[in-house]
């Protein structure tokens, strides 16, 4: 076995609890509402489906490089990390507490397809409350960092939540978008988007594409230690800016420019060529370090 590979602990394959165990300083994990105290979703029980004791999300406080932090970790293996009523309430409670207690940061380990459709309106309301809570927490000066590298990515309402965070740290395996590939295919047809074409899905929503587009602050390897180092590194150089209309206008303008420049394109390959990458077809095979240096060499 290759030593460098065996020493790696894949973020993609780990459970939410294993991710937290490797992300936080050893021994600092302190769960709020642990499985014994939490309760499974009553909505799922009514639909005759087994729930999970923690309703698919772990909330805790702990330390990252000795800094006090709060963390929220969604479990993608349970109902696709989807947000139900209790799941959402745990996230919102943690964010609101962060706005009051002001830890150094909230680390939000997103692994979710969005709203839990079984819980319908309760899930939708939960998502909107999470959005508001993320913005309130940031307005209180506490950065909220999204870490995206799980099998469910960050889609639907959770895709929006990810973009409301101070920054996103993503791996190549991570995905970020609004409507998921299957949803687009169902609504608009296979000619519009072929969700079975996994390479296309990653060229359009995957971590490398998101990083090249500037949607994510960092691209890291699929390794729990790499996410930990990335988060610590980002926080060391970050001061949460006060929200201002000027910042919003700048962001709005850059989105409009982006739509005008790339709105008609159908594939990441075309977008990468337009970004000035000489050989777009080579991008999917580049490793993390090669891709980061490629991006750093691009015209701005």
């Amino acid at each position, binding site marked *: 076995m290759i030593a460098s590979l065996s020493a790696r602990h894949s973020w993609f394959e780990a459970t939410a609890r294993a991710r937290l165990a490797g992300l936080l300083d050893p021994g600092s994990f302190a769960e709020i509402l642990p499985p014994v105290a939490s309760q499974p979703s009553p909505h799922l029980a009514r639909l005759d489906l087994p*729930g999970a*004791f923690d309703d698919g999300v772990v909330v805790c406080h702990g330390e990252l490089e000795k800094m006090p932090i709060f963390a929220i970790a969604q479990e993608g293996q349970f109902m696709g990390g989807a947000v139900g009523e209790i799941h959402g309430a745990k996230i919102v409670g943690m964010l609101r507490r962060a706005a009051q207690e002001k830890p150094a940061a909230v680390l939000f380990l997103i692994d979710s397809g969005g709203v839990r459709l079984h819980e319908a309106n309760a899930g939708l309301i939960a998502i909107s409350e999470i959005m508001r809570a993320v913005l309130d927490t940031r307005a209180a000066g506490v950065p909220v960092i999204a870490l995206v590298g799980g099998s469910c990515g960050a889609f639907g309402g959770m895709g929006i939540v990810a973009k409301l965070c101070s920054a996103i740290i993503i791996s190549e395996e991570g995905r970020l978008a609004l409507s998921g590939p299957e949803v687009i295919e169902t609504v608009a047809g296979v000619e519009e988007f072929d969700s079975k074409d996994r390479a296309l899905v990653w060229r359009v929503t995957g971590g490398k594409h998101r990083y090249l587009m500037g949607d994510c602050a960092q691209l890291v390897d699929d390794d729990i230690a790499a996410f930990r180092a990335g988060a610590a590194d980002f926080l060391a150089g970050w001061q949460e800016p006060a929200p201002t209309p000027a910042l919003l206008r700048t962001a709005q303008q850059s989105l409009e420019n982006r739509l005008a420049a790339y709105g008609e394109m159908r594939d990441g390959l075309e977008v990468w060529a337009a970004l000035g990458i000489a050989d777009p077809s080579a991008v999917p095979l580049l490793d993390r370090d090669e891709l980061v240096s490629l991006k750093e060499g691009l015209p701005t």
Partner: protein
Amino acid sequence: METLEFRFDSKPASHAADPALCGVVGSGNLEILVKPGIEPGACAICIKTSARGFGETWQAVLGSFAASHAAGGTLIAINDMGATPAVVTLRLAQALAEYQGGAQ
């Protein structure tokens, strides 16, 4: 969904740490929560499973676990999404080991 409840005689478990949770409610998987029970010489198990009609299989797998492990004095709650007997046995052993503070 089917809810099953069992009680098996079992040798008393050694000193317990905190309640322990193992596994995830994902396809072909299950989560097991082990916490202190009332009877030192018995293990009480409550299962919520998505797969109906496997009560006898559960009884056999859990009975063999309770006979071969010292699991007395515990209350075990299980949320199952179609785990196979082999996975159930492995997870039970893992959860009990963590409960007794012997987590890997």
